[in-house]
């Protein structure tokens, strides 16, 4: 069976940050309303809803059922994805499959999180195996401190190079009306002088905890063109995981095997042979500055070990030859349930030419990744071009 050609035709984001003015349902609805209104859609136009959220963060069990009204899913199929940091991307992938399979024509995806109402680091710590790993888990910071230490030893990347990523993100965020952490005057020195959380991770090397939501509408070819002038066509999706136990992943995340495996599959499907040349922009899920440098290497934007060199060249700056995270990335905005969907939505906005002040000129093809769990990767490749064939092989 051939898949139905499928595109993202609408996106919407809430304002991200510390949202003491709104409940989690209201934040989700803010993103959904903006998404639907951008194309004059209503809930009557939506066939199914896919929700992404990590319930342990706010401590609401069956949160999709609780918020069914806010999510607009009454009397519709409501899928609840629950895959950790990737969940927003897993939600987008589920939207894709539900349309590409011919099951539905228009599917609404929404990722949301209100981290001010929960304990992020506690929830992340429970990702670890309760017997073997949990006692030594230290949330995301410990995880990326371990990763960064390994990465420094393996590649020779420097704290200054990582700090350049942190600076890039917060300056790009100033061009994004939805971003949480906007620091227009941030410098490399300021990053290096910020509080040391866990060697070598400084406070400004790490992503914030945000409240926020993101929504997309995924549509079938038969309706996509009538909904968006330039739909963001899905050319490939892929998911890959690393080993179940963190200790089984050699070199920790410096060599991220799931990212390599997922991009390899997706590149094969989309005909990507030279990522730096073939993509016009990338939205990578970088929870820490060092991670973005390593991800450059693992997605093939540069040879292994050259991530630091790429940022030194300025290639990934908003005016570089392969801009990475012009939205400000995860380092600027991180409502976990929405974070990976923001990567997908921002990539779609770039392809649709609707990214406003952080729009990269003439984007034809964009890469979005999601990260989570134990080195879990989701990948989506979007293009302004209709896929040449509806045939996609696994």
């Amino acid at each position: 069976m051939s898949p139905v050609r499928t595109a993202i035709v609408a996106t919407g984001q809430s304002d991200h940050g510390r949202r003491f003015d709104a409940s989690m349902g209201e934040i989700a609805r803010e993103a959904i309303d903006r998404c639907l209104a951008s194309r004059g859609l209503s809930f009557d136009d939506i066939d199914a809803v896919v929700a992404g959220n990590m319930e342990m963060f706010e401590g609401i069990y069956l949160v999709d059922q609780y918020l069914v009204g806010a999510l607009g899913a009454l009397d519709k199929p409501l899928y609840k994805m629950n895959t950790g940091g990737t969940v927003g991307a897993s939600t987008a992938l589920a939207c894709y499959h539900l349309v590409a399979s011919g099951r539905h024509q228009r599917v609404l995806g929404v990722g949301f999180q209100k981290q001010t109402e929960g304990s992020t680091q506690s929830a992340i710590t429970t990702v670890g195996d309760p017997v073997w790993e949990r006692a030594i888990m230290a949330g995301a910071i410990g995880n990326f401190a371990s990763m960064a230490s390994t990465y420094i030893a393996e590649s020779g990347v420097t704290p200054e190079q990582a700090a350049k990523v942190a600076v890039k993100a917060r300056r790009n965020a100033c061009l994004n009306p939805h971003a949480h952490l906007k620091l227009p005057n941030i410098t490399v020195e300021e990053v290096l002088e910020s509080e040391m959380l866990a060697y070598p991770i400084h406070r400004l090397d790490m992503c914030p905890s945000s409240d926020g939501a993101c929504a997309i509408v995924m549509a079938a070819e038969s309706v996509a063109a009538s909904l968006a002038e330039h739909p963001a066509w899905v050319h490939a999706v892929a998911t890959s995981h690393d080993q179940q136990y963190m200790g089984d992943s050699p070199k920790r995340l410096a060599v991220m095997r799931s990212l390599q495996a997922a991009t390899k599959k997706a590149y094969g499907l989309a005909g990507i042979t030279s990522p730096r040349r073939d993509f016009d922009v990338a939205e990578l899920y970088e929870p820490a500055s060092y991670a973005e440098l390593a991800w450059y290497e693992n997605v093939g934007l540069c040879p292994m070990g050259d991530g630091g060199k790429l940022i030194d060249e300025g290639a990934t700056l908003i005016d570089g030859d392969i801009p990475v995270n012009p939205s400000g990335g995860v380092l600027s905005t991180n409502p976990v349930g929405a974070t990976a969907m923001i990567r997908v939505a921002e990539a779609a906005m770039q392809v649709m030419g609707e990214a406003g002040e952080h729009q990269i000129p003439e984007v034809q093809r964009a890469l979005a990744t999601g990260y989570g769990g134990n080195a879990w990767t989701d990948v989506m490749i979007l293009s302004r071009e209709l896929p040449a064939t509806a045939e996609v092989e696994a």
Partner: protein
Amino acid sequence: MATAPGTDTWIIGCGEARTAVRRDDVSITELAWEAVAPALTDAGTSLPEIEGAVTASQDFWDGRTISSMSVNELVGGAFGSEAKVAADACLGLGYALARVEDADQHLNLVVAHAKESQGDMHTIELAAFDPYFQRALGPDETVVAAFQAQLLYAQGLFEPSHAARVVAAARARSSSLDPLSAQDVLDSAPTADPLRELDRAPLLDCASAIVIAGGEHAARLARPRVRIVAAASRTGAYWSQRPELHTAPQARAAAEEALSIAGWEASDLDAIEINAPYAHQHLIVGHALGLGSGEELVRRFEGGGEGPAVNASGGWLGGSAGSVAGLHSVVSVFKRLRESGGRALAHSTTGIGTQSHHVVLLEASV
């Protein structure tokens, strides 16, 4: 392509863990493997051939953020694709079906696991209630089920003895729980009026798994197979915004959509499996699906009356768990259909007070 309406996706193997009140002898990972390993064998395949998996479980019950981390490796997730739904596995099966139908993954595992002995039921269920206005009152799912039962019995179509007989019928067919009588149910300890302790399915440790395949791969593997003809789901309002708590229009709507996709009439079904955690909820769903009311419907659960066999497996009340129950029924139906042929509907639910309803239609290979 399918030669009949519906999908060209097939169940080609199944497996289940040993179900018990406590499985202290195994971890969650080992429990799930007890289901996955025989499913792979039954399908004539092995983990390296599996292209993707959809799992169903709940973080709260497992006490673990991303509860599928416990089973990721054993479902082919290491450098493969696994995605988890936090809902009954019938919904997960619907998603897995889409991944096969769009040719992304030709051979897919669907796995559901629960180790309810490790969780505190009241604490977990309390977290499903509105944190601003309801949680301080200390409710749990039994409280809502009791409201629901009161409303149901007030309509005059059913009474507590009917629900008790549904439990007894399920236990009589159970492969994991001891039989009991309707009177045992009525004599059990009161929980929330009008419910008794045995009105609720006992908390259990269990896991179920199936292997599904697109038509070409199913034919290649040449195993006895059952077609997944259609899947549908509908979500109702949150319990406190649902004055008609004693009805299940979403169950009917989901079934009607699935039957429409299949091009079937309800009378074409040879078996129906209804799943819900409380006995009276089976009466609500059975009534919504047009199986009758009062004594007539109860007799259907007991094996009497005309029409399709109802809950021949015993269903959730006969021994399963949240997230798993729907897949347990699918496994039961799969076994039945590949031996004796026919068509079946498997139903399950997610949410407090049977909020979401999921339906899967299955047909033996002809």
